[in-house]
Structures are given as structure tokens and as C-alpha cells.
């Protein structure tokens, strides 16, 4: 066994193929032997999902990092899976374009990695997730067979959408080797407007009012807990306040100026106070901090509590944030309130964690039509598949049938996702 270069993966070896053909050969060999395969890219999100129980082969995509084709006027780009998000962003910015998906640690995170894990960040409210930008994809399935989906065009009604099927599948249907992305023009500028809120009712009032706002928010963020009490960019939270609302705005200079003025006026009329404005380059670090929140270890010492990703309807966000703070008054929470996605960092007694998640959190969420997944387990915890991913959905049989078709021996990221490893 190797010396844990990629905790928590138990790797017997790490191989770095140079191209898709080599990836296919590698997976085909592993399929023959029934060896689990754990794809690795930037290594920024290896704690997502269950830690694998069985030793296996680390498959690094670092050698596949080319820009294959970039016809900028088409607003599409084709890249290999191992290209980092930062390198992609730099290349696109050179043409005044971007992929408007927020990613933590972009200098290490890769295109393949974010397609496999589909992260959620502040700008998904207006711009969607990576799912909305993958128009073509190549991968190697669990038997070592290469396959592709989609193409190079932004509208394509031919056949099944294999791009969407593979996106967010945690590499369990195929090892992604190449992706064609749709891109957007870079906005001229951005800004963030923030206000402190005295209580949950004030929060819901402003969030409900945003349904009919004249501005076009890129992000609507509700911040709660110690992580936000003293923010270097936003300043300290007011004494009487317990929550903060931050709205992100993007567009031309004229549009953003107009929106800032308009939103301030809408908030003033609703009785909101203590507004802070961050414009342009000063806004970028805060957008990035919002994207990195689920991955920030507390106090920077590496150990972390539970990090959960909760999905509810937007109208239920405030109620859920309130109940999270009842469960853990020291929780730090970032709610992407526009889209209904909540990231929570909770400190629970390790022995009690499964009971709290399965006995309190999940039932609460289910009654609001929502669900949650564990993004990161507390140090030393050994949560079950049900606790990390939730109980099997009614559609599980259909999903398992698809999984079995693409990975008959169940070697791809074995045991880490919702699929129960079967005997080989």
C-alpha cells in the first residue's frame, strides 16, 4: 500500500496515462482483474462520498490537460479532463469569455473533476451549474470501452443526453477524459450588496421581496454563524444582527450601477440597513470565498466537522437555516437562498452524528420536500451509505440498472456513491 498520497483513497498504485487510449487500456485491465479504479484529478474533493473500503488503482488524469479546440466565436471550447479550472479560466478570459460556474481551489480543481461532482456555488442561481454547460463529453466506461455523448453544438436533440447522465455521477459510469463546454461572455463588471438582518423574519421578508425585484441577481446568499461574524471584506456583523444577506450583481457598468442603486432603494423601503457595496475587483475575493466555504477547514488546522449540502425549495431556506442553528448554535451556514441550496458546517458529537442526521435533519427536510448529502464527514467518523447519501430513492432501481450497464463489475469509484458494491 502506498503512503496515502491521496487520503482517504486506499491506493495500491497511482498511474498517470497520457491519453484516452491509455486510460481505456488501464480500465480494461482493471475490469478483467476486478480491481477498483479511483479516478483522481486535482484532489480537491476526495472526501466527497464514502471513503472506499477496498484498495484499488489510483487513475490520475493529470496527463490529459490539453485545450483540444477553442473556436472562440462559437462560444464553445473542447478540453481534456485534467485541465485545471484556473488554466481554463485564463484561456477563456483571453477571449473575453468565461465558464460562469463557481469552483473552489480552481488552481487545482479540474474540468473532469467538476463535471463528475457538479459543485454548487453562489452564481448557480442565475447561471446554472456545470450541467448546463457540458455539450459534449468523452469517457471510458467500467469495462474499458470509450464512449462519447453530445457534440460541438449548443442545441442537439439527437439521441439520449449522455452528457447529463455522466455529469454528477461521481465517475461511477465512466472516467471522463474530454469535455466540450459552452461558454459565455465575461461581464464587464460585478458588485456585491450586503445588509445585516436582525432575525429570520426579516430575512424571509427580503428574500420574498426579491421574487419581484427589478434587478437580476447573479447570487442571493444568506450567511449565518461564526464564519461570517467578522468578514474582512464585509466588515463585522452589526450588534443587533444575526444574519447577513448578500446579493451578487453582474453586467455592464451601466447595468450594475443601475442595479446597485435600485436594490438599495428596494431594501431601504423594506427597512433594511447597514448596506455594504463591493464593486469590481473588490467583489471577486468574496465571490470566491462563497464558492470555497464548503471546503474551508475551520481555523485552518485541517480537522473539520460535518459539512452538509442541503437542497430545498427556496421558500423553505430560512426555516431550514433556523432549524440547523437549533441543532447546532455554533454552526456556520451559507445558504444560496435563490436556488435553495444550503451549505452547513456543523459540529456534532461524533457518536451522535448519524442519529442527528438520520433522526432529525433528514426527516425535517423530507417534510419540506428537500434532501441532503454529506460533503465531508467529521474526522474519524464512519458514516454509512444511508447517512451520507440518504435512503435509496424510488428511482434507484432504474439508476442501478443504468450503472450495471456501464460498469458491470462495479469497479469505478467502488462503494463511494449510491450504488451498493456487488460481489464480483
Amino acid at each position, binding site marked *: 500500500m502506498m503512503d496515502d498520497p491521496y487520503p482517504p483513497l486506499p491506493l495500491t498504485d497511482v498511474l498517470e496515462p497520457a491519453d484516452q487510449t491509455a486510460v481505456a487500456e488501464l480500465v480494461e485491465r482493471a475490469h478483467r482483474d476486478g480491481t477498483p479504479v479511483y479516478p483522481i484529478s486535482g484532489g480537491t474533493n476526495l472526501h466527497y462520498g464514502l471513503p472506499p473500503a477496498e484498495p484499488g488503482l489510483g487513475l490520475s488524469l493529470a496527463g490529459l490537460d490539453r485545450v483540444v479546440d477553442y473556436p472562440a*466565436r462559437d*462560444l464553445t471550447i473542447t478540453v481534456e479532463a485534467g485541465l485545471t479550472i484556473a488554466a481554463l479560466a485564463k484561456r477563456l478570459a483571453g477571449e473575453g469569455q468565461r465558464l460562469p460556474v463557481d469552483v473552489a481551489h480552481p488552481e487545482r480543481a479540474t474540468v473532469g473533476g467538476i463535471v463528475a461532482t457538479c459543485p454548487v456555488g453562489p452564481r448557480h442561481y442565475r447561471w446554472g451549474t456545470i450541467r448546463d454547460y457540458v455539450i459534449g463529453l468523452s469517457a471510458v466506461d467500467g469495462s474499458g470501452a470509450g464512449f462519447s455523448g453530445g*457534440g*460541438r453544438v449548443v442545441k442537439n*436533440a439527437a439521441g439520449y443526453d449522455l452528457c447529463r447522465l455522466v455529469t454528477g455521477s461521481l465517475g461511477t459510469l465512466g472516467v471522463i477524459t474530454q469535455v466540450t463546454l459552452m461558454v459565455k461572455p465575461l461581464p464587464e463588471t460585478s458588485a456585491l450588496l450586503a445588509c445585516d438582518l436582525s432575525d429570520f423574519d426579516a430575512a424571509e421578508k427580503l428574500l420574498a421581496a426579491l421574487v419581484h425585484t427589478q434587478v437580476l441577481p447573479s447570487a442571493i446568499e444568506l450567511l449565518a454563524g461564526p464564519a461570517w461574524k467578522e468578514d474582512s471584506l464585509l466588515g463585522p456583523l452589526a450588534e443587533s444582527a444575526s444574519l447577513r444577506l448578500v446579493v451578487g450583481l453582474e453586467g455592464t457598468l451601466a447595468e450594475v450601477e*443601475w442595479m446597485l442603486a435600485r436594490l438599495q432603494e428596494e431594501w431601504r423601503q423594506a427597512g433594511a440597513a447597514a448596506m455594504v457595496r463591493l464593486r469590481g475587483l473588490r467583489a471577486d475575493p468574496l465571490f470566491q470565498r462563497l464558492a470555497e466555504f464548503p471546503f474551508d477547514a475551520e481555523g485552518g488546522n485541517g480537522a473539520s466537522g460535518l459539512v452538509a449540502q442541503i437542497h430545498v425549495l427556496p421558500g423553505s431556506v430560512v426555516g431550514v437555516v433556523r432549524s440547523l442553528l437549533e441543532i447546532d448554535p455554533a454552526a456556520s451556514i451559507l445558504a444560496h437562498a435563490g436556488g435553495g441550496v444550503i451549505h452547513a458546517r456543523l459540529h456534532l458529537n461524533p457518536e451522535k452524528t448519524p442519529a442527528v442526521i438520520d433522526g432529525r435533519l433528514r426527516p425535517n427536510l423530507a417534510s419540506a420536500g428537500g434532501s441532503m448529502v454529506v460533503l465531508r464527514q467529521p474526522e474519524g467518523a464512519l458514516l454509512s451509505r444511508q447517512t451520507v447519501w440518504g435512503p435509496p*430513492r424510488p428511482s434507484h432501481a432504474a439508476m442501478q440498472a443504468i450503472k450495471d450497464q456501464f460498469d458491470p463489475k462495479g469497479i469505478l469509484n467502488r462503494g463511494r456513491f449510491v450504488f451498493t458494491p456487488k460481489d464480483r
Partner: protein
Amino acid sequence: MTIAAGSPLVAELRHCLGREGVLSSPSDLVVYECDGYTIEKARPDVVVFPRSTQEVAEVVRLCNRHKVSVVPRGAGTSLAGGCLPIGGGAVVMLTRMKRILQIDLRNRLALVEAGVLNLQLTRALAGTGYHFAPDPSSQGASTIGGNVATNAGGPHTLKYGVTVNHVLGLEAVLGDGSIVQLGPVPDPAGLDLIGVLVGSEGTLAIVTKVWVRLTPDPQDYRTMRAIFATVDDATNAVSDIIGAGVIPAAMELMDRGIVAAVEAAYHFGFPLDAEAIVVIELDGLRAGLDEQQQRIGQICRKWHAREVLQAATAKERELLWKCRKMAVGAVGRLSPSYCIQDGVVPRTRLPHILRRIAEIGRRHGVRIVNVAHAGDGNVHPILLFDERDKEQVARAVTAGNELLEECIRAGGSVTAEHGIGVEKIALMDRLFAAADLAAMVRVRRAMNPHNRLNPGKVLPTG
């Protein structure tokens, strides 16, 4: 498998749905033997009209027991034969399930039964400050379920995307008769079955309800008409506008041939001597529109536009759109029969594909007029012929296939929004490698193992 009118299955279906929910006499069935793709016909064995998801599920279970295929159908506006009951079977009409169940502005969604018409939903949302973005040209007749089946597009996809970008959740009946709900809250603990079902043309499940995303109404619009001397000038202008980072809500191109038809039919006052006209619509914040509009005007004039006319009132805006939306309906002026094709290329290849289409038409002696969602590289060449003349029909079919192959060669696809249906099955192995089709077959094998859900569609392998 063909079934007789008096068969046990028909009796069981009548028992489940009531006599008025089942059609089985030949004179009734003939109505359902084709859809908007009129070239091919196939007689169903029975047509049923369930009124609830439970009834749809029961129909599927009954048909499974008798090993009869099931062909879901909404309004039957498919242009690719997606509703063709190949080999007979039961056509399952979703049209009696047409209630809008919920409009929830706080959560920016609406819940509709699959048989709700696209335009019906749009009308119900008027005045709420929100709308349902996908507006295919068929919207007056097509159902939301049908829009989901083909991942329908329309003129506003350039800025707002296609149907899948506006589906938050689905309720569907699977091939085994079980009912699943996906969404409306996203669920990362599993595969994106919503993404797979949208655009699957009824071959993986029967969608019974849809949670749709609602989009805020734009604050304002600027709608323009630019007149160009050549098609190349028009398509180059479109390309440059996008290259300048301006994303209009829509950019619709009409060539001289189709404009002649529109003028003959409606007399809107469009010039008959322009090779290409582009209707461009900007929408969004008033604070940003003037700047974008000026940029568009500059670019059009750079490409020798002889006129860039802006709609000054809501009425003028409506008129510009009417011309575009009714263009296909006017084609009857030009020819007794026509076939509207659907091809797509990377947007910068639009000038090339329109040139190739013109050349193909000339070579085969087939008159072709064009409308295009120019910003997306999505062309709708309309091939004109007289279906009573077999030789003309043959030439039109050949020309149609050749232009689709040209789309593939240009790096595009054989369908942007109409779907594969039966019409384009033969092109699937030109568009996709064997390994890629095999991957799609695997998805179908997982969800439709007996191949009884809408057989003979989308994938060439049996």
C-alpha cells in the same frame, strides 16, 4: 404485436378507463396513424385517453401483461414521426391530463400535467411577472409533455436555453408501470434521470407531470429588423454580434424565398428584394439595452445592411414576430407540399451551411427556402415539392439527406430541436460512432428492456 378490437386487452382498458377513454374502431384509429411527419403512417391497435397518472400506470401494466407496445402522444405535432405507432400497439394520449396544478412564484416554479399546452401555460402566467421561457413555434398546439420529449427549442434558446434548462422536476411512469417523481428539488444522490428523460422522445418513460422553472419577465425589449443584400452578409453579422459579447434573446434569419411567401400571405410590407432579413431581439435591463442596440446597429452596417429598423411600439414588435412565427404557415403559397428540415452547425459555420444548402437545392432541382435560429447555428431549410409527383419527392428526400450529412461534416448535428423520431434514425450511425450508439442502447436496455416504450424511435438498433 397486433391486437383485435374485441381482444381481452381492449376490454381491460375499457374497464380501467371507461368506454369513452378507449378508441378501437378502424375509422377512429386512422386519425392517429401519423403526426406532423406525414410521409410515414402506421395504424395503432388502440388509442387510450387516461385522465391521471394512476391510469397511465395501469395502462402500461396492462399492455405489458399482453406484451403490447405503448406509444405516448401529446398534440402530435412531432415533425420527426415521434408518435408513429410502428408495429401497432397502444397510443397513449396525454391530452386529457391538461391541468395547471400549481403556480408558485415564491419558488419560481409551476406544476403542470403533461397535456397542458405550452401557450396555455404562457397565458396563465401573463401578468405575474414570470413566464415559461421555451417558446417553440408549435407552442399554440404542442404540449409541455411533448416539449419535454423532444427537448424543444424555439427562437429564444440563444439566451434562455432549451426545455431541459427549464425543467425542475418530472413525474413519470416507467416501462414497468411504476411511478417515479424526480425533483423539483435537485438531488445529487443519484444519476440525473431528469437530464436523460428530457429529449428521450418517449422511449424511456411516459412523463405525466412537469415542474417547470419560471423566468422573470424582462424589464424591456428592443426588437429590430435588419435587411441584407446577401445571406453571407447576414450570417457574418450574426457571428460578429455574438463575437462582440452581445447575446440577444433571439436572432432569426429569413431568406428571400420565405419572405416572398410571407408577403404573399400577409402583406406585412417586408421588402421582396432582400436576400436575407434578420429579426433581432434584445431583452433585459433598460439600463443596458441602448448600448447593446447601438453595437448591433454598428455591426449590421459593417456588413452592409441597407436598413436596421427598430420596432417603436409593442404593436410593431408583435408584427415583426408575427412575420417570423407565421413564416412556415405561409409556405403553402409557394408549393403544394413541403418538408421542414432541422439541422445545426457550430454557429460560425452558418454562412457555409446556407451556401451548401443553396448548392444542394440547385443540383437536385429542389427549391429550398430557409428560416434559421441564426444565433444557435440552427437552420430550418424548407424543401418544396409536389407530393403527387413521385420523382420530385425522391429528389427532395435525397436533397434533405444530403444537407443533413453536410451538417454532420460541418461539425454539427442532424437535429437541434425536432428530435430523431423515425425520420432520422438512418442518420444516427453517421452522426455517432458505434461505441456511442452502444452507450445509448445501454441506457435504453436499462430503462426499456423489452423495447416496448415507443419502439422504432431514436436508436437504429432493434
